[in-house]
């Protein structure tokens, strides 16, 4: 009788200890949420260097403050935030060399004034920016970059991540090795898109006097313009083809003696409207497709 009770007691102790260990491990590994507020006076500059994985989301508000919300595992990721005047520097770095990518992760949600300059850098994970006006430089290795209703001088650089830019205005520069770019309904006056193997889609108006350059080494370059546009077009490919599905709207180039080519060719010169904007499309071995939107 006595040994049985002792045995049960011992079992209970071990069970409790085990449960406590499991609970403490779970608490230690659970993500920690932090939120900090920084008052600003003018147009702030927010610099975020995320050396670990994670998503960065930036939205705007009418308030003169920057709110930094982060979620990460405290003992795996170190987050440092520093404010000097209207500049706020944020960095996230790994404290361990965990082989589990999801453990070395920091997700950020920033709320900034509408007019804010952004410099964001991450490894993986989406960079999402919405309704912010100001110059921005966004860099990512494998993460995608999604921009919606942003305005300013926008520089996006990725290794493999893609860009989706919806309702953007100002100037846009995009460079990538394998990432693609989709520019939808833009009001951009200067566009420079370059990718080695990704695809490029530009679906929107060409603003008069604007300059638009789109290049892909091996990918598809597709442009969908509207009937009201006015631009000179120069499309060239080495080994691919220029698929002109808008021949009825492209007049032979009015500024030189170059003639318009047939639907499938290696190069195409033409003018839509008065030829006020300048559009240069090129691809080394990919297809260049030109369409008119309905």
């Amino acid at each position: 009788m006595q040994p049985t009770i002792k045995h049960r007691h011992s079992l209970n102790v071990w069970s409790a200890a085990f449960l406590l260990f499991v609970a403490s491990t779970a608490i230690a590994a659970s993500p920690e949420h932090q939120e900090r507020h920084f008052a600003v006076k003018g147009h702030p500059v927010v610099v975020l260097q995320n050396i670990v994985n994670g998503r960065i989301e930036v939205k705007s508000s009418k308030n003169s403050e920057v709110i930094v919300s982060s979620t990460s595992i405290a003992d795996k990721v170190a987050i440092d935030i520093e404010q000097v005047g209207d500049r706020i520097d944020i960095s996230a770095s790994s404290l361990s060399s965990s082989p589990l990518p999801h453990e070395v992760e920091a997700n950020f949600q920033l709320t900034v004034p509408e007019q804010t300059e952004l410099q964001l850098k991450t490894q993986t994970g989406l960079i999402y920016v919405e309704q912010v006006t100001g110059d921005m430089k966004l860099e990512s290795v494998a993460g995608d970059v999604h921009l919606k209703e942003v305005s300013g001088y926008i520089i996006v650089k990725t290794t493999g991540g893609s860009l989706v830019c919806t309702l953007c205005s100002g100037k846009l520069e995009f460079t990538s090795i394998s990432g693609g770019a989709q520019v939808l309904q833009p009001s951009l006056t200067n566009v420079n898109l370059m990718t080695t193997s990704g695809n490029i889609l530009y679906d929107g108006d060409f603003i008069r006097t604007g300059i638009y350059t789109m290049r892909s080494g091996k990918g598809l370059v597709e442009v969908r313009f509207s009937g009201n546009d006015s631009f000179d077009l120069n499309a060239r490919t080495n080994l691919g083809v220029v698929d002109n599905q808008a021949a009825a709207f492209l007049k032979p180039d009015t500024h030189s003696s170059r003639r318009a080519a047939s639907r499938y060719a290696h190069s195409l010169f033409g003018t839509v409207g008065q030829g006020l904007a300048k559009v240069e499309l090129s691809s080394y071995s990919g297809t260049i497709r030109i369409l008119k939107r309905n």
Partner: protein
Amino acid sequence: MQCKELEFVLESAGLGQLPKDARVHLATCAACQGFLADLNSIVSAAKSLPAEVAPPDRIWISLRAQLEAEGLIKEPTAVLEHSNWLNSFGAWLKPRTLATAAAALLVLAIAVFVTRVPQNYHPGVAKNRPAVESPRPVQSTAAASASPSSTPPVNAPSQGPAPSKAKDLAPSPSESASFTLSQAELDVPDMQLAGNSQVDASLRQNLRTLNAFIAECEQHLKQNPQDELAREYLYTAYQQKADLLAAMMESGRGEN
């Protein structure tokens, strides 16, 4: 003197010592006194402005992009592009143990670029140039700046033809660039990069993508050396590769 004449005097002689008749007119004319006061306040305000404000980089970037797009700086841009990627390539080499040897290679590449670029403009002249003029000083620089053990063989048999064919020893700009980047790439394969499988995989995959594209362009240019578009893509790919290798080295260094 009339008001108009005083204005002319001020425009031509400035705000210094005025002629006597101008001073007489000024003493009696309220309008001209006000005009002179305005000019003085403009001059003093101008003096309080900062002497020179350096424009931000983006202004130069956009200006260059615009000039390039308009075809106004086509050739100089090509040279700038080379130096850009060489500069960025050099930036990451400095802290590496391979820096000395790589610097020698970089000197080789730059020297070859400098000596060879004019040949693009005057192919006929290039044919008459002594073939070994560029490797000789470069070799001596490399020998002076790198220890024999760490210096990669510039004229290694695998990298070039037999020494007897002296004419072929001077590599083309793209060959030099390709060689320099390949040497840098040797350090990468065994390196743990970002310590993150997803990022590592992406970096390595993109390096393979670039290598395949570079090989394709180089092959094409051997057959069509006058293809400017292909050359443009090749140089851009070199620059991207230099940037990518820099990023890979940076990731590796962060972990090491």
